[in-house]
């Protein structure tokens, strides 16, 4: 066995065209991993810088004001979603979904859709990350390597001699395919392993990605060899394989996308915002009681503290901020449910489109997919809630606000820890 592998290995090293493909795949993979690492590094550094600036800014605000209402109004809080250790390999949806916000205790629906998006023209071109190399480029390398595995020998008249000389079919085609497969697998995944080691990724996740890549590579290899087994014209087979690739990578996903978009009716994002704004703005003209009733429905513990003296009191202001969110909540929920539904349905479509499937799997393992973005959004909501629960007693109960209490203010990091449990 080793002898067969060894022979085919040395044989492969002499085939210039195979070596060119291997070299290209290695270079592309290295490029994707390197830029992925630097992208993730930049994101981490941005978060670090933001964290520091956030503390400084909040400290200044806290120094300037003394009452709970003003403190809540002028204090912003950084929320973020840190890239995982494997994010370098699958940047996923992080260029489309936002991963950092600064929020305050005002109506959340007005803040949560702010997106600090990256350059739209670059996002439109897409990024070349490792997941892209695997899902889109590697099928090409595999097609080029395997479609004429047998056809090229047949075309140059060596096929019969090879087959009759070989001790067994496996010793020849098996060993040859195994060596090429091993070589391309190594060329593409080696940069990834180095990247994973650098970024200290969990072994289990790395193994998972290895397994998925192996299955995906095996799929394209088997398909290429199977379709090419009896062929005389290599370009014809390659055309067919590339046609299949285009079908899997473009046609099926596009058709799936059209179908899903047609079948899911979702409210427009701007409707949420409009509803929430209207509610908040109208509240200024509505009787205080109307707002307070709606507020107390959610917070019965303050039902005896709703009396507002004079024209303006912070508790009224924050109550109608929350009521704004409450009014917009049904549309907002529907909007989110539609996004979830679309994501799930896209998952079914991807079963018929292997490149999409592997891309989704990798983003899932690297926690950079839409689900991770949804979770981050939930974290923001949870944190916002804990912030409100922190301030409400000071706002509604007229207790003297002691600024030392600010040390007990909820931390986003705590929300993250709670959500993991």
């Amino acid at each position, binding site marked *: 066995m080793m*002898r*067969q592998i060894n*022979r085919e290995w040395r*044989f492969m090293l*002499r*085939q*210039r065209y195979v070596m060119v493909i291997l070299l290209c795949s290695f270079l592309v993979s290295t490029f994707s991993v390197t830029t992925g690492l630097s992208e993730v590094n930049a994101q981490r550094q941005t978060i670090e810088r933001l964290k520091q600036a956030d503390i400084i800014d909040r400290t200044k605000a806290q120094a300037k004001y003394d009452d709970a209402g003003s403190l809540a109004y002028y204090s912003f809080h950084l929320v973020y979603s840190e890239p995982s250790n494997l994010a370098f390999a699958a940047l996923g949806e992080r260029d489309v979904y936002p991963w950092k916000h600064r929020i305050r205790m005002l109506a959340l629906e007005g803040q949560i859709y702010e997106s600090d998006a990256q350059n739209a023209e670059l996002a439109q071109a897409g990024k070349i990350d490792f997941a892209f190399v695997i899902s889109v480029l590697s099928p090409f390398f595999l097609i080029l390597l395997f479609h004429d595995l047998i056809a090229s020998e047949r075309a*140059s*008249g*060596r096929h*019969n*001699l*090879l*087959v*009759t*000389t*070989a*001790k*067994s079919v496996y*010793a*020849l085609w098996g060993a040859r395919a195994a060596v090429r497969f091993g070589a391309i697998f190594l060329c593409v995944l080696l940069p990834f392993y180095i990247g994973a080691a650098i970024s200290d990724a969990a072994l289990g996740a790395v193994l998972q990605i290895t397994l998925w890549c192996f299955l995906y590579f095996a799929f394209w290899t088997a398909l290429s060899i199977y379709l090419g087994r009896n062929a005389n014209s290599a370009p014809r087979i390659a055309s067919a394989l590339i046609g299949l690739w285009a079908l899997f990578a473009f046609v099926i996903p596009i058709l799936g996308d059209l179908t899903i978009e047609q079948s899911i009716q979702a409210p427009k994002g701007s409707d949420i915002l409009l509803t929430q704004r209207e509610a908040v703005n109208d509240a200024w003209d509505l009787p205080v009681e109307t707002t307070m009733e709606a507020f107390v429905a959610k917070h019965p513990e303050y039902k005896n503290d709703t009396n507002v003296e004079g024209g303006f009191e912070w508790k009224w202001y924050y109550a109608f901020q929350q009521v704004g969110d409450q009014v917009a909540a049904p549309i907002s929920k529907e909007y989110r449910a539609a996004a979830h539904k679309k994501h799930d349905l896209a998952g079914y479509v991807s079963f018929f489109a292997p490149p999409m499937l592997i891309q989704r799997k990798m983003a899932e393992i690297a926690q950079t997919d839409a689900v991770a973005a949804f979770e981050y959004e939930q974290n923001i909501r949870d944190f916002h809630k804990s912030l409100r629960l922190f301030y409400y007693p000071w706002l509604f109960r007229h207790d003297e606000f002691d600024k030392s209490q600010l040390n007990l203010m909820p931390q986003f990091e705590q929300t993250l820890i709670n959500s993991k449990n």
Partner: protein
Amino acid sequence: MTNVNQNEVVIESQSITVKIQNSTILSDLNFKVAKGEIYALLGGNGAGKSSTLKTFLGFNTPTSGRAIIDGRDVSQSLDMARSKTAYLPENATLYPHLTAKENVEYFLSLADINKSLEDIEAAFERVALQKDAWERQLQTYSKGMRQKTAISLAILREAPIFLLDEPTSGLDPVAIDEFNFLVKELASSGSTILMVTHDVYGACQVANRIGLLRAGELVGEFEAQDNHRIDTEQVHAAFAQRQSS
């Protein structure tokens, strides 16, 4: 049908019929080749020469009848049959980007045979491949040189049976002479040779027996009497007649 010593038969076609998609390629083909014999299947284009070889190599499965190599049915024990046969393809196509030595090493390894460098060089000398070419890539070779390389590979595999596909087509007269000499030497040292060709004169010069193939049927056999050459005129007349009929 010529008599052949049954104990020494190594290649035997037992009523082989091959049909591919309803067209009959070979029809009830019967012949035997004894050890040490050179048997030439002679026929025009489309007579079924290559199909016969392919059947003995196991690429065609007979619709009926059996292809026997060394007493065993090829379609039953394919690997055994292939290990006993050395096949020489029409253009002696080996890897052009490898040298003669590398090609031979590669194919020997494929057959799982260990040979020392001395053995390989001895084989090259035996087939008279000029020494200065041993380390050159095959893309610089003439067809005769490629054929010598392929034969040296067959010798090194120590396969007792040779299947040759149009071995002399495209060779110059000197190379044909060298080739004929080599084949006879192989036969005299105990190898059995089945070759297919459309070259009447070449076949008569080298073969012990000639089978005449037409439209997948064996229509005649000629044999050298008393170690003399087969009568070329006689075969040619039969060949020409059969072709025109």
